[in-house]
C-alpha cells in the first residue's frame, strides 16, 4: 500500500539545511516566520472560524440528542417496575429545545451564505466557501434526521402503549403501574366495571336470561369501543405517516420555489428587454419617417431651385 515517507522528507529537510549552512547561505527566513503566521491568522478569522463555530454547535446538539436518546426512547419502561427516567413534559422540552437549536443553526448557515455572497473574493474561494456551507447543511440535515427518527419512535411507542392498554380493560387492576394518563383511564374503566359488578351483586338473584343479556350487552359495548379505538389508533398512525410525507413535499416545494424565483427573474428581464425593443423599433420607424420627410423636402427644394435658376437664366 502507500508508503509514508514523511520521515524521509524531514530527513531531507535536515540535510538541505546543513548543506545550506555549509555552503554559507544564511537563512533570513527565521525572521519571516512571525509575519507569515500573522498574515495567515488574519485571513483565517473571517470565514472558517464562523463555519467551525456552527459545526461545533451542531455537534453539541448531536451529542446531546445521542446522550439522552436511551432515556427518551425508553424501551424498557413498559415492563419494568422502575419509574421511567423521563416524563412526557421533559420529552416535550427536549423536542422544543432541539427545534429551536436547529432553527438557529439553519439561520446561522443562511447568514454565512449571504455574507460570502456579498464579499468580494476570487471565484475559487467563493466556490470553496459555497461547498463548505453545503457540507455543513448536509451535516445539519443528518442531525435533524436523528431527531425526527427519535420523535417518530416515541410517538409510535405511545400509540402502541395506548393500544395495548385498551385491549384488556378487565385486567387493568392486574396491570403494572404505568404513566399517569394510562392509570387514569384504567381507573375509569375499572370503576365502570366495578359499578357493573356492584349492580349485579345487589340484584343477586337475577334471572339467567338477564345475566346473559347483560353479558351480551357487555360484549357488544366492549366490541364497539374496541373497534372505535382501533380506528382512532389507525388514524393516529396514518397522520404520523402523512406528516412525514408532508415534510418531504415541503422540501421539494421549497426547492421548486427557488427555481421558480429564478425563472420569474428571467421572465421579468425578458419582458423588460422586449419593451425596450419595442421602444427602439418605434424610434426607428419615427426616424425613418422623419428621414423620408427630409429627403422629400430636399428634393422639392432642389427642383424649385432648378426652376428658379432656369427662370433666372431664361
Amino acid at each position: 500500500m502507500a508508503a509514508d515517507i514523511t520521515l524521509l522528507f524531514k530527513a531531507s529537510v535536515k540535510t538541505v539545511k546543513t548543506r545550506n549552512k555549509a555552503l554559507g547561505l544564511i537563512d533570513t527566513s527565521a525572521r519571516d516566520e512571525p509575519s507569515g503566521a500573522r498574515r495567515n491568522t488574519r485571513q483565517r478569522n473571517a470565514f472558517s472560524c464562523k463555519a467551525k463555530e456552527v459545526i461545533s454547535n451542531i455537534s453539541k446538539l448531536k451529542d446531546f440528542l445521542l446522550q439522552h436518546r436511551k432515556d427518551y426512547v425508553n424501551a424498557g419502561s413498559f415492563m419494568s417496575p422502575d419509574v421511567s427516567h423521563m416524563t412526557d413534559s421533559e420529552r416535550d422540552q427536549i423536542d422544543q429545545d432541539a427545534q429551536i437549536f436547529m432553527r438557529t443553526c439553519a439561520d446561522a448557515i443562511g447568514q454565512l451564505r449571504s455574507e460570502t455572497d456579498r464579499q468580494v473574493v476570487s471565484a475559487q474561494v467563493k466556490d470553496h466557501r459555497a461547498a463548505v456551507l453545503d457540507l455543513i447543511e448536509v451535516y445539519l440535515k443528518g442531525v435533524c434526521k436523528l431527531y425526527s427518527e427519535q420523535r417518530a419512535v416515541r410517538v409510535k411507542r405511545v400509540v402502541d402503549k395506548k393500544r395495548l392498554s385498551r385491549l384488556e380493560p378487565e385486567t387493568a387492576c392486574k396491570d403494572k403501574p404505568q404513566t399517569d394518563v394510562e392509570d387514569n383511564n384504567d381507573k375509569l374503566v375499572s370503576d365502570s366495571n366495578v359499578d357493573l359488578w356492584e349492580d349485579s351483586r345487589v340484584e343477586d338473584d337475577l334471572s339467567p336470561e338477564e345475566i346473559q343479556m347483560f353479558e351480551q350487552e357487555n360484549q357488544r359495548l366492549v366490541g364497539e369501543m374496541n373497534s372505535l379505538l382501533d380506528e382512532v389508533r389507525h388514524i393516529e398512525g396514518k397522520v404520523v405517516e402523512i406528516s412525514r410525507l408532508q415534510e418531504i413535499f415541503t422540501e421539494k416545494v421549497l426547492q421548486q420555489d427557488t427555481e421558480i424565483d429564478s425563472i420569474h427573474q428571467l421572465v421579468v428581464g425578458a419582458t423588460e428587454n422586449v419593451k425596450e425593443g419595442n421602444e427602439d423599433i418605434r424610434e426607428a420607424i419615427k426616424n425613418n419617417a422623419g428621414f423620408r420627410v427630409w429627403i422629400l423636402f430636399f428634393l422639392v427644394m432642389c427642383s424649385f431651385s432648378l426652376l428658379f435658376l432656369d427662370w433666372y437664366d431664361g
Partner: protein
Amino acid sequence: MAASVREKQAAALKRMLNFNAPPLKNTAAEPVWKVLIYDRFGQDIISPLLSVKELRDMGITLHLLLHSDRDPIPDVPAIYFIMPTEENIDRICQDLRNQLYESYYLNFISAISRSKLEDIASAALASNAVNQVTKVFDQYLNFITLEDEMFILCNQNKEHISYHAINKPDIMDTDMEAIMDTIVDSLFCFFVTLGAVPIIRCPRGNAAEMVAVKLDKKLRENLRDARNSLFTGDTMGTGQFSFQRPLFVLADRNLDLATPLHHTWTYQALIHDVLDFHLNRVCVEESQGSEASPAGARPKKKNKKSYDLTAADKFWQKHKGSPFPEVAEAVQEELDTYRAQEDEVKRLKSIMGLEGEDDGAISMLSDNTAKLTSAVSSLPELLEKKRLIDLHTNVATAVLDHIKSRKMDVYFEYEEKLMSKSTLDKSLLDIISDPDAGTAEDKMRLFLIYYITSQQPPSEADLEQYKKAMLDAGCDLSPLNYIKQWKAFTKMAATPANYGSGGVKPMGLFSRVMNTGSQFVMEGVKNLVLKQHNLPVTRILDNLMEIKSNQETDDYRYFDPKMLRGSESSIPRNKNPFQEAIVFVVGGGNYIEYQNLVDYTKARPGKRVLYGCSELFNASQFIKQLSQLGQK
C-alpha cells in the same frame, strides 16, 4: 484478495483523501473540508473510480488541476495527487512559495526519488513552510482501473508505450529502456496495491520477456529490503491465503494481431469500436429530431452528449458482454417495467383525487398513504432508472446506426468464419469490391485478418487482385506491408495461432423485435449468436493456469521473485493449478480479449482472472499504428 482491483484502488484513494487515515464508518461525522489538486495522470486515475458527488461526500470542496491558475485559499488543507515529474515538482515549490494553502499533504502516484524530495525540501525551507508540509506519501497507484477486473497503464502519454513505439524498426536502446521502465513501474505499483507477489511467466524473445526480467528484478529488490518492503505487514493480511500466489502471464501483442482488428458483436466492445469511448465515458453525437424548422432558422446542429458508464449502472454491468440483439431486447424490457411503475404512481394520483371528499376516505386512506409513501420514496430510484434507460437507448441507437450503415454484421460473420477456418460462402473479393458494405477501414481489417489467419499466404496473382480491389475502395495499403513483415518474422515460430473451433450460427431475421414494436428496427441485421471460442490469449492462460502441457507454452520462462536465487529454467516449481491469474498484454489490448477472459472465468467458478494492457485501442487506432509502421 476477495476485493477486486477496482475496490482496492478506490479504497486506497478514499484513504488518501481522508488524510491517509482509515475512513470512519460514522455516517453523521463532522465535515472536514479540503481541496484536491491533481495533474492529468491523477485525473485519469480518479475519474473512473470516484464521481464528483463522492468527492463532495468526502469533504473535497474544490478539485483543481495542478497547472491551472489557483488562488490562495488560506485556511484549508490541500491534498496533492501527482506524478513526481520535474514540472510538477517545480509547481509545488511555487505553491509553497506563494503560500496558497494552510497545510499540504503530498501524495505521489509512484515513488519519488530522493533528489526531487530534496528539491521540495529546499523550497519549503526557503519559504519557511516546512511545518505546513504535513505528510508526504508514495501512493503506488500508477495505473488506471476501468472495470472490476481490468486495468490499463496510462492514458496521457500513451504514444510513448504504444505498439508502434515498441515495434518500430528504428528504435534505440535508450528509448526501449525508457519504455520498459515506465511499464515496469506501473506494474510494480499494481502489485503493491494488489498486495501479492506473483509468479511470472512469459514467452521468450520479445518485449514481454524484457518486461518480465525487469519486473522480477524490481520485485526481488523490494522483497530483499526487509525494512522498507511493501509486501509485508498488514498488506498481506487482507484476507489472502499466502500460499496461493497469483499467476502473472505476460503476453505480447505480436502473438495475436487479428483480435484487435476483429469486428465485434458484444455491447461494450461495439461501443469502444464504433463510438468515442475513453475511461468509461462515451461521447455520442445526436442529431436534432426532424422538427419543422422555423422560418429563417439556422441549420440543424448536432449535439455531442457524453455519458458515464459506471459500476453503479446495473443494466450496464449485466449487459456489457452480451451480444447486441440481447441488449436491444433488454432495453425494451426495462422500458416496459419502468412504464408500468410510472402508471402505478399516476394511478395513485387519480385515486387520491377522487377519494378526497368521500366519507369513507378514512378506510381507503390507510391503504393509499402506505402506497403513497412507498411511491414517494421510490421516486428518486424511478428517475434514476429513467435516466439510465435513456442513456442506453441513445447509445444503443447510435451503435445501431453505425452497424446498419457499415453492415458490420456481415463483416463479423465473415471474420468469425475466417478465424475458425470453416468454409466461406462468399469470396473475399466480393466483399471487398462491394461498394456499400462498410468503410475502407473495415475492408482493410477484413483483408488483414484473412492474411494473418491463412495457413499459407495467397499467391502473387491473388494478392495483386486484392490490392487492386482495395485501392479501388480507397484503402491505404501500408498496414499490409507491415503485416507481411510480421508474418515472415513469426513464420519461424510455431504455426500461427489457432483461433479455436467456434462457429457462428445466424438465426434469421429478428422478427420478434419487430413484433413488439420496439424502437430498434433491426430488419436486415441478422441476429448472430456467438458460440464460445477461445482467443489465443485465453488459451495460453488456460494452459498455464491448469499446468497443461502444450508446445506453445512449454517454452515460457518462469520467474519467482520470492526464490532466493533467480533461475533460468522454465520448469515450474509449482505443480498445482492456480486460482488467480493476471494477464497483461504488452503493446495494447482491447475489450474483445477482456470479454473472452470474463466468459472463460464465468465458466470456471472459483477462478479469478484480471486483464491488463499497456494501452487500450480500438481497431481504427490500431490500423493507424500499423500504417505508420508500414510506411517506414
